[in-house]
């Protein structure tokens, strides 16, 4: 049994966080969430009805059981700290958990996070009592400053741009972030295959967040299952201690074993 993931004051069995965009239907999203075993589900606030009016044409939240999942509102669509802070407050007012996946991307093409605005927003939101999970580029110095100066609950470095499915392009930087982290490191974005997720967990990332790869799969439920298994495999391997990779062969039956028989 793998150890639990602890974020802020909550513990989770699953180390797979799942996003809710891009699915072919809300029903397929609901079923995929169940198959993934996830306990943390992130939702774009701009797609939800924030007025409490239960708009039937913006009802994504009705497919996510708040008893079963921690709903993690995200600030996707915000281009500045002000906009992100406003959205987070609004979500809390609408009765959503006071947790926020802070994402601020002023560039709608690559959706790369703005480090300056993210840092500013994180400081404001943590001061207001939010549990903040910031989406960042894989920048170790920014990650440290967010943890220590802004008091974020995690850092969420990207493996590659959102939706790119390119895997851990930023692997060397993420290794440094993991080495220096005092809060959980959640690799977010770019994870396009279960093997990418396993790789992140094997490296020592505490969790991964996956959306596109599950949502656009031919069978989202099976893909969600594949990610669940990969995350479990990666974490188990990490906890067991992976042997170091080396260039030369190492016989499983030592050549000099006879000396000691």
């Amino acid at each position, binding site marked *: 049994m793998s150890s639990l993931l602890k974020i802020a004051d909550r513990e989770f069995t699953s180390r797979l966080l799942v996003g809710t965009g891009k*699915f*072919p239907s809300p029903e397929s999203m609901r079923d995929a969430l169940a198959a993934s075993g996830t306990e943390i589900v992130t939702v774009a606030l701009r797609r939800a009805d924030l007025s409490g009016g239960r708009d039937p044409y913006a009802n994504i939240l009705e497919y996510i059981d708040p008893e079963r999942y921690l709903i993690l509102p995200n600030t996707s669509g915000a281009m500045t700290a002000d*906009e992100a802070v*406003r959205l987070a407050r609004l979500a809390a007012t*609408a009765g959503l958990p006071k947790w926020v996946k802070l994402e601020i991307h002023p560039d*709608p093409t690559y959706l790369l996070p703005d480090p300056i605005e993210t840092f500013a927003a994180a400081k404001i939101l943590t001061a207001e009592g939010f549990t903040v999970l910031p989406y960042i580029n894989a920048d170790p110095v920014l990650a440290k400053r967010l943890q220590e100066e802004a008091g974020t609950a995690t850092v969420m470095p990207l493996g590659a741009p959102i*939706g790119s*499915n390119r895997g851990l392009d930023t692997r060397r930087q993420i290794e440094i972030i993991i080495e220096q982290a005092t809060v959980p490191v959640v690799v977010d974005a770019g994870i396009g295959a279960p093997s990418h997720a396993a790789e992140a967990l094997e490296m020592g990332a505490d969790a991964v967040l996956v959306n*596109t790869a599950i949502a656009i799969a031919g069978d989202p439920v099976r893909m969600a299952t594949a990610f669940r298994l990969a995350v479990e495999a990666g974490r188990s391997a990490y906890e067991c201690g992976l042997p170091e990779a080396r260039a030369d062969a190492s016989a499983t039956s030592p050549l000099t074993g006879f000396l000691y028989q």
Partner: protein
Amino acid sequence: MSFVETLNRIDRDGWRSPLLRRFERLIEPATPAALEALAAQSAAITRRHFGRTMRLFAPLYLSNECVNNCAYCGFSRDNPILRVTLSVDQVVREARHLADQGFRHILLVAGEHPKFVSEGYLEACIEAIRDFIPTVAIEVGPMEMPEYARMVQAGAEGLVVYQETYHREAYGEYHTAGPKRDFDWRLECPERGVAGGFRRIGIGALVGLADWRFEALRLAAHLEYLYRHGWKATYTVSLPRLRPAAGCFQPRHSMTDAEFVQLICALRVIFPQVGIVLSTRESPALRDALFPLGITSISAGSHTEPGGYTGEGRDDLHLTVRGRRVELDEKPEDRGATGQFAIADERSPAAIADLLCRQGFDPVWKDWDPALLGADPVGASA
């Protein structure tokens, strides 16, 4: 520095960026096998970037008054059509009707007429519907940057302005009267819109006014320019093929369905992130086939005449002659204002949403909340 200089380099010197050279190769005449491969690539890229979703919007025509004469447009000032400008209350009733059908994204459209469609009027329309319509965009006559900023302030999120044709000489021939004759002024609208604070800009060319490959290359150049110079905005393109309209204009250039598909797919491959909009000008069968290939946003059940959804404004129909209102001798009983063009896909929004679901697409009605910009969330005052 504006896109005018880039366009001049393309037209006069034959200049092409590396990206444009790639695009140009993709729109060369293609075999069916090559087109199939391009379509597969386009469909895959679209799924990766936009998922299995389709955004829906509706145009809401405010006025068919216009000071311009555009050879292809039903609203041209010299066309003796039934005209009307909806009051703000009538606009609200039209918008409520669309909201009841599911729409959370409305494009306000009006002819260019400073007397009837004034700046204050547009702001009042935007402000009157933004409490229940999360996404409001406008498609109206060109404005100066500070005027655009006021539209954004009033609650508009998107600006749509098509160049109509990027062919400078042809543009002069089609636009025979009115302020629209100024090609460069129109060409710079998207840049002024970005500077004015719009988050989403829609550009396009009407297919049929010039050779489609000529238009497509320059549209792509415009996009490339805007992505570099207005990097914070989201862009969409639209390629309306000309439809029958008052004035009986016959397009000089045609584009086959295969060429239309090729262009959509080429745009997708070169600009993976661009929104591609498909209107109800196209036939149901073609629309259904195009949905998976690269389209990201569609209209449904559209009317192109002011008051078309509810019949609002029928009691105020008139002619406009030389800028002056002329009363009708007899008000027609059974007709509303004249539309801009005939639509080809008359299926209802609900029917289109059902169809999308059957094709494995989630119809997305709401994808924005004005709360991001400091307003109350939509529906809060309901």
